[in-house]
């Protein structure tokens, strides 16, 4: 039986009808081959609009559907469902985008109508060759892997565990807690970071539904949504987690030193003990020390002379023979919450971070200011004296095309927080050198306002350099910041005792590796690309892999926590479904044609195309295939086809574009 195509042209109010001559287009569509009915309607996406096509399908009037309206990214699913409700395979529907890529971007005139016609002709030709596809279902393993034990991972894991679902939380450091554990206070509320974080860390450690793997790294992720196989490498901690009770006797006696004593005095900044066997910080979860193999006198030395910690340990928990071990398990979904690292300012030589004592990074300041840090929370210069003037330099590594183009979002706020903390603890003058103050969150602008009244000196200008070359007596022995006060229009030299570089956030150096293993992409900024910048900020292009926190982009704590909860609820909704449909528009190998040249095997980013040694042909694992079509374009024999994007369908579309009217002269929409 001949193919009968129904074409539905949407006015979209005046959005389309205002620019495109609908009557003319309807007339044109009627003349196209295989088109058996053409209708136009004010809003095709409305219920009556959908009902229109649904009914025609039900009535058996048509067996292919073309809707000419907005972008398929907008309503392809809407109309697919309507088509399906009418009783037709949803893949027998296609769209012509005559709004976003036609009426909205061109002027009122014949050329816009002509373009709409061409696009419809192309869609009709394509529709003629469409084939029904069936979706497949796979079961979902209810266990979830959370990568990263910072506040994002903690939140996500707790949400899931509280919902009664099993979670494996993998953290690369010896303790969970992440960056937040290093902070003393949080902006803008100035509440104690440890006070709000520690209870959550403890819950994670104790929760029956959470399996915690610290000091561990993801080694391999295989499989696909609902059915991932994960291999984790547990690094040797040299302390038996079952036996240790965290008493601390071991590090009391340890003669090794993990944090170098020489050089910039601030390298001593550490939250936990500076010995080779150490606890990262006192509230660590699990509260079990770890031996730093690089500096441990026993492990470094072939004679193994030291062994003091083992002697001290009453429970015989020290095990120098411990080795890394690989653990394999299965999960259904993955939440990546692997966090960020701070920008290393030593590459900006003019800020003198490597060269000048008393130029420190924001994170160093956090530790210095933290009561449990090595200065006991005292803000002091390298020589131990109290600074009289402190400068805080914003945008170090951020908003700068030489380093990172993006705004790191948290630096303005934490810089304000520092100003307050400094004022609270010292009598020092505080200068803020900023380009723009970005205080966009709840209570943030109010915090800025408060700081303005606390006599913090705000200088608008990007610091040109930090130097120790004095030009007058007042500058002798000081750090001098040279900056244009752009609001005054004059260059200022400001002598200071300490300069804090508000370093931006950047993707963790291991993020790319983690992303690769989970089959998601990182963008040019180094962060993981989310599924959609607006409508899919939590999901990724790989089904079953979700994002939380600063691995997606720089974020503050509230946003991170919100995203973590969003990720866990996305996972919950997956788990609750129990089964998941997988992409129908996948690639497919015609095994009769495949010669087994293996050319396609390297092309698939998801490793969905594998060589079947027995059959001597390549095969596509449909569960892994995302339908990008790269293998199709690479197959030399034409044995692989892309369902729904077959060569002949695209050829038909091209022919369709040129099947219409001779192109008319048009005017240029400029001027």
């Amino acid at each position: 039986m001949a193919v009968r195509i129904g074409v539905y042209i949407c006015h979209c109010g005046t959005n389309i009808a205002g620019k495109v001559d609908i009557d003319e287009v309807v007339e044109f569509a009627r003349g196209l081959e295989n088109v058996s009915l053409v209708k136009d309607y004010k809003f095709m996406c409305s219920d009556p609009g959908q009902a229109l096509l649904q009914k025609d399908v039900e009535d058996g009037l048509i067996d292919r559907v073309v809707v000419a309206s907005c972008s398929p990214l907008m309503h392809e699913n809407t109309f697919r469902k309507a088509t399906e409700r009418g009783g037709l395979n949803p893949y027998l529907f296609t769209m012509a985008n005559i709004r976003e890529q036609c009426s909205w971007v061109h002027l009122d005139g014949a050329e816009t109508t002509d373009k709409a016609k061409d696009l419809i002709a192309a869609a009709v030709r394509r529709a003629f060759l469409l084939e029904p596809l069936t979706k497949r279902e796979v079961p979902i393993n209810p266990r979830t892997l959370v990568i990263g034990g910072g506040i994002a991972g903690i939140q996500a894991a707790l949400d899931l565990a509280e919902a009664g679902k099993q979670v494996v939380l993998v953290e690369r450091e010896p303790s969970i807690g992440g960056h937040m554990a290093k902070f003393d206070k949080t902006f803008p509320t100035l509440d104690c970071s440890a006070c709000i974080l520690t209870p959550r860390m403890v819950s994670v450690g104790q929760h029956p539904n959470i399996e915690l793997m610290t000091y561990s790294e993801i080694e391999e992720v295989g499989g696909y949504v609902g059915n991932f196989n994960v291999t984790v490498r547990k690094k040797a901690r040299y302390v038996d987690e079952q036996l240790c009770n965290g008493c601390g006797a071991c590090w009391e006696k340890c003669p090794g030193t993990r944090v170098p004593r020489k050089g910039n005095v601030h390298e001593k900044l550490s939250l936990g003990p500076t010995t080779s066997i150490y606890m990262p910080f006192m509230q660590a979860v699990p509260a079990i020390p770890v031996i730093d193999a690089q500096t441990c006198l026993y492990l470094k030395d072939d004679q193994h002379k030291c062994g003091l910690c083992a002697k001290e340990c009453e429970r015989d928990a020290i095990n120098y023979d411990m080795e890394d071990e690989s653990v394999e398990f299965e999960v259904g979904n993955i939440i990546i919450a692997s966090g960020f690292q701070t920008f290393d300012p030593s590459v900006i030589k003019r800020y003198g971070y490597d060269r000048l004592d008393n130029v420190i990074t924001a994170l160093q300041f956090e530790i210095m200011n933290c009561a449990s840090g090595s200065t006991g929370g005292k803000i002091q210069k390298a020589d131990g004296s109290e600074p009289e003037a402190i400068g805080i330099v914003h945008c170090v590594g951020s908003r700068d095309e030489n380093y990172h183009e993006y705004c790191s979002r948290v630096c303005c706020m934490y810089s304000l927080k520092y100003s307050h903390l400094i004022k609270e603890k010292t009598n020092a003058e505080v200068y803020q050198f900023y380009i723009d103050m970005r205080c966009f969150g709840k209570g943030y602008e109010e915090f800025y306002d408060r700081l303005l009244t606390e006599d913090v000196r705000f200088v608008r200008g990007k610091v040109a350099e930090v130097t120790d070359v004095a030009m007058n007596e007042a500058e002798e022995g000081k750090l001098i910041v040279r900056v244009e006060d752009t609001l005054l229009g004059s260059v200022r030299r400001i002598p200071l005792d300490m300069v804090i570089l508000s370093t931006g956030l950047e993707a963790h150096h291991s993020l790319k590796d983690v992303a690769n293993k989970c089959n998601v992409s990182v963008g040019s900024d180094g962060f993981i690309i989310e599924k959609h910048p607006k409508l899919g900020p939590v999901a990724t292009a790989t089904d079953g892999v979700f994002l939380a926190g600063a691995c997606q982009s720089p974020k503050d704590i509230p946003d991170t926590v919100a995203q973590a909860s969003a990720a866990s609820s996305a996972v919950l909704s997956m788990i609750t479904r129990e089964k998941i449909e997988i992409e129908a528009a996948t690639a497919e190998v015609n095994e009769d044609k495949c010669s087994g040249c293996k050319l396609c095997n390297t092309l698939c980013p998801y490793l969905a195309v594998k060589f079947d040694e027995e059959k001597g042909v390549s095969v596509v694992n449909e569960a892994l295939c995302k339908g990008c079509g790269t293998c199709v374009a690479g197959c030399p024999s034409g044995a692989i086809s892309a369902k729904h994007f077959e060569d002949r369908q695209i050829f038909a579309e091209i022919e369709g574009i040129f099947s219409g009217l001779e192109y008319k002269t048009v005017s240029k929409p400029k001027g």
Partner: protein
Amino acid sequence: MKYTYYPGCSVTATANLYQESIDTVAPSLGIELEELDDWNCCGATAYMSVRELMSFAISARNLAMAEKFHRDLVTPCSACYLVLNKTNHYFNDYPDMRSKIGKALEAGGLSYSGNVRVRHILDVIVNDVDMEKISSQVTRDLKELRVAPYYGCQIVRPEMGFDDPDEPESMDRLIETLGAETVDYSMKTKCCGASLMGTEEKMALALCRDLLMDAQKKGAHCIVTLCPLCQMNLDIYQPKVNSLFKTDFKIPVIYITQLIGIALGASPAELGMKRLGVKVSGEMKRIIEGA
């Protein structure tokens, strides 16, 4: 190692001592410089202010002539280094420029495809010559000599990639290889104001003063430079700085190649030392002669 050599106008005149020292030390370093025949002015700073395209076009003449040798083009002058590189950049990245420069060259019977790598002699010495080879040839003990390396601006900026634009260290490394001590000195890439000396003398002298002052304060016996303009500025104008700002600087400003020559045992005459405006004297003289 053979290179095509582009001396630049200054080196044939006010910086002739630079050339003398290069001629003296290059063979010991295993650097063979073959001068580009009939080179012309690179079209530097002053020219560019008036005629941009023209300056690129005449600069490109040199590049076009150098291209057929398939070797790196080496220049000792920072300004020439900058302009020749900039010509390459604009030629390669701006199609409109490329076609116009191409047409102009064609009028002179030349063509250029944009493939000459332009390098500064410091880059060549530091990166192509084996540092151990240099240190093995050192015959004078300069360990007491405190040297302030002065890079100036145009060798590291805009970023040419061979050293950091704010904190270059290649010359520091070289000086240490020669056995001398580098002084920790923040002004090493600050502008000396050479291009303003003719027109805005006071401003330029002030910039010189800041430089000399920092060097003196840090206890430098001499300043080592690699740019003809910087050298002339800091050297010839030093008395004028003194008279204007009531200072008393007597800091010799020598070329890096002269320092190499000293370390390698060449005589002052071979290195053009007598052409310096501020002569080597006092402590520095003692160290060099005592060594």
